[in-house]
């Protein structure tokens, strides 16, 4: 943690756990008899319960979106730049709820949890969950917290997909939807990258058909490769060029395959290494599947505008110019459908060099628009 907690931080926070005993039937047809969701809250719920904001996380995200868990934390939560007193999502005005999704590996029930049926970790037996399943589970968390309607549901990337799904699944329960650096469905190229990541994990000898936990090992190499390929898609060519260029680790080329020569290789390995130590391989598989399967228009003859007709929320859609994973064109598909469905919508295309990762990075125009939109939400 920094020497003193910054004034615009939510400060020290502790996660809470909500246990659900009522069975949840999933899109795949299977049922989770029993599960728990870990979440954090920032700010205070007002008397009329009208100021609640739900944060939906992306592929590798979790419930810890803002503040610090302990004095020893090196870094704050993953969206601390946007959540806090006076920040875009102002915790002086809003009661913010951030959870770890079902299937996750940060405290919510997922593949590394114990399967009550067998007494052993679920591993590969954990059902495939979808964005819709997550939204249903989030609705139950809202019920538990006494929140009948969210002032806003907010998310970036895969989180944006959940925000969009909320307006379709529970139109009465969300007043504003902010979908940032998101897409209405994955492209073939997106799915292809996910498949490479999955194959990296599935083909690791330590994967053991997903039951590696019982064997006391982890498919570290596969997870590392999956993260490396994913990470490339989060950054723009320019961002990588600026950060690493063709810079070398050592003075000269080694003419072999064993050494880490280029800076970018070293960076990717470090990212992969770090990730494989903290993330569950089965969760990674699940998250990529949830991404691949997301396609709300499929149920409406691929008519996205018709899909959004039920929505009652106002929308704010933002994209970033150098994002090639979910490019501005993908956000414009969402916007055009909302225009055709005659919904209230604002759309911004933010000039940012960082690629897909830009939604996590403070950028003056992004933060100003984000704050501007949130400020106009009546509570």
């Amino acid at each position, binding site marked *: 943690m920094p020497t003193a907690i910054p004034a615009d931080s939510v400060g020290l926070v502790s996660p809470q756990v909500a246990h659900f005993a009522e069975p949840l039937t999933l899109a795949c047809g299977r049922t989770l008899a029993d599960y728990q969701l870990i979440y954090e809250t920032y700010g205070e719920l007002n008397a009329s319960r009208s100021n609640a904001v739900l944060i939906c996380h992306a592929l590798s995200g979790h419930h810890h979106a803002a503040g610090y868990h302990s004095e020893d934390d090196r870094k704050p939560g993953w969206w601390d730049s946007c959540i806090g007193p006076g920040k875009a999502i102002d915790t002086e005005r809003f009661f913010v709820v951030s959870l770890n999704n079902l299937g996750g590996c940060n405290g919510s029930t997922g593949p590394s949890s114990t399967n009550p049926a067998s007494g052993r970790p679920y591993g590969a037996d954990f059902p495939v969950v979808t964005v819709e399943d997550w939204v249903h589970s989030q609705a139950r968390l809202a019920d538990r917290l006494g929140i009948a309607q969210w002032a806003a549901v907010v998310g970036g990337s895969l989180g944006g997909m959940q925000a969009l799904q909320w307006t379709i699944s529970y139109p009465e329960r969300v007043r504003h939807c902010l979908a940032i650096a998101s897409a209405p469905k994955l492209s073939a190229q997106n799915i292809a990258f996910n498949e490479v990541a999955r194959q990296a994990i599935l083909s690791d000898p330590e994967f053991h058909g997903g039951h590696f936990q019982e064997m006391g090992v982890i498919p570290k190499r596969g997870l590392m490769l999956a993260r490396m390929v994913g990470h490339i898609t989060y950054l723009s060519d320019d961002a990588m060029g600026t950060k690493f260029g063709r810079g070398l680790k050592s003075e000269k080329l080694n003419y072999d395959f064993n050494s880490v020569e280029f800076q970018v290789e070293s960076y990717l390995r470090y990212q992969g290494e770090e990730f494989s130590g903290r993330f569950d391989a089965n969760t990674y598989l699940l998250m990529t599947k949830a991404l691949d399967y997301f396609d709300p228009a499929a149920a409406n003859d691929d008519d996205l505008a018709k899909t959004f007709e039920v929505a009652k929320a106002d929308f704010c859609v933002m994209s970033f110019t150098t994002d090639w994973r979910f490019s501005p064109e993908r956000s414009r598909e969402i916007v055009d459908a909302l225009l055709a469905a005659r919904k*209230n919508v*604002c759309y911004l*295309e933010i000039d940012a060099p960082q690629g897909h990762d830009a939604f996590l990075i403070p950028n003056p125009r992004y933060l100003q*628009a984000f704050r501007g939109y949130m400020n106009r939400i009546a509570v």
Partner: protein
Amino acid sequence: MRADLDIIQDWIPAGSRVLDLGCGNGELLAWLRDHKQVSGYGLEIDPDNIAACIDKGVNVIEQNLDLGLGNFASDSFDMVVMTQALQAVHYPDQLMKEMLRVGRQCIITFPNFGHWRCRWYLASKGRMPVSEFLPYTWYNTPNIHFCTFEDFERLCQESGARVLERLAVDRDHRHGWASRLWPNLLGEIGIYRVTGPTR
């Protein structure tokens, strides 16, 4: 409200759906929403203007008019408005057709290059007019397609657009006897309401 917007709002029926091309800070749409129950969207590319629209609660879409209105369905708006932007777009003729396709009616305002001051400047100095009202040099200006009232009405004819209403005003948006008498010489800004060929 900006004087030209005050004139325009009078031409927009209460409760209608409006698309405002180059909506600026969202002043017109916000006023129409608050006073005439008008709904709609503004298209804009300037970041500060977009931020101002968001603050006002105006539906603003970051979209470059030079890329057309292909994302809007035909006849999806009662009125398409474009104030002081016709001279700044790359393809005024194509945009005009798009406006007539998307809206049942269109309101277009633009500076009149046939005004006597422009004519006098060009005639006497032999150089492109630069004034307080049109302060740019020819090589560094957003205004790349100046026209006169006559030119605009010719374009309307060629696009099959019918002029429903026209108003020539001075830079303070007053429409006195002079601009009524001889609009193409004495009017500085043209305000037109037009409709498409098939209507």
